[in-house]
């Protein structure tokens, strides 16, 4: 009988570590995976006021500041910033991008784009570029493996709008939409 009791005690002692193993160990690992993709974003100053200074009928000018963020693919990647006048000047009687009141009236711009802070080179637009209401026009292009700073990099668009005496006096506004893309 004592032998039976001893065997039972031994069996319990052997069972205890097995149960413990089933309930986990004191350390465990997990692998954290992240896939970093091509990506881009930008911020734009909300309103840009165009003003005319100097001699009369000198062009209206103003500058829109941008901050861009970009990461392009290491092999074969590219990116761009473009803009389009998505809402033409209003109200009627003033400047118009789509239907200039006088041939030659235009909303032109030049670009200044800092290189991506962490790698790569930005190529600014041809100056001047004439904006359009029907197509995107270039602000900058980026090549392979371009990477901006985490705080972004700067760019600006300097506008020049014909000051046509034909424009009626008044306040006019248009909406310009900027698009950034990366692949």
């Amino acid at each position, binding site marked *: *009988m004592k032998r039976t009791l001893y065997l039972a005690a031994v069996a319990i002692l052997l069972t205890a570590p097995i149960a*413990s193993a089933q309930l986990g160990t004191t350390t465990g690992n*997990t692998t954290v995976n992240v896939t970093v993709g091509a990506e881009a974003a930008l911020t734009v100053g909300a309103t840009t006021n165009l003003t005319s200074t100097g001699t009369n009928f000198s062009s209206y000018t103003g500058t829109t500041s941008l901050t861009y963020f970009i990461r392009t693919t290491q092999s074969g990647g590219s990116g761009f910033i473009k803009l389009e006048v998505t809402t033409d000047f209003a109200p009627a009687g003033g400047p118009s991008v789509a239907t200039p009141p006088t041939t030659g009236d235009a909303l032109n711009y030049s670009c200044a784009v800092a290189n991506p802070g962490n790698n790569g080179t930005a190529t600014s637009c041809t100056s001047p570029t004439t904006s359009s209401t029907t197509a995107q026009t270039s602000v900058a292009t980026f090549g392979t493996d371009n990477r901006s700073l985490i705080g972004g990099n700067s760019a600006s668009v300097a506008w020049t709008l014909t000051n046509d005496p034909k424009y009626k006096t008044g306040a006019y506004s248009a909406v310009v939409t900027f698009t950034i893309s990366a692949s």
Partner: protein
Amino acid sequence: MKRIVVLAAGLLLAASSAFAQLGTTSPTGTLALNVGAEAGLVVNSATTTLTESGSGANFQPYTGTTSLTYYIRTSSSGTGTIGLRVSTDFGPAGGPSVGTPPTTGDALTYVPTISSPGTAAAGQTASTGSTLTPVANFGNNAHSTYAGNSASVAWSLTNDPLYAVGAYTATITYTISAT
């Protein structure tokens, strides 16, 4: 002949006495058991995939959650902890790094949650050092269920434009202890 009879009686008495020394028909025994402080855990998420959070805005942090099951028993004057460390930093090079963030402020942070009897630590920044950063603490006399209790770690990784496009992997080691 009388001597023989006396000897036989003596043998019979001796036999009875010997039987009594071999046990009874209903003996009792004692089982001794020391239950000690103990802890274990299972990382339910062998792999935790971090994906960009939010919608619309780009360069949002990469986020994901690791699920744990813990088992614990602390003594009447004991405590317990769960901690973690980044035992293998992100690789390959060119992407995020916990040990040497490519940009100041880049970080792998986490917010733990845990069911009772655990108390979750405050949000932390993960580290590659040998020191564990806290996930949860336990007080004295803390007992999980036999099936274990749940905990989780919600990760957030800076999405720095500096990271080169690609896939990166790190290993996190969790440690649980009890006294």
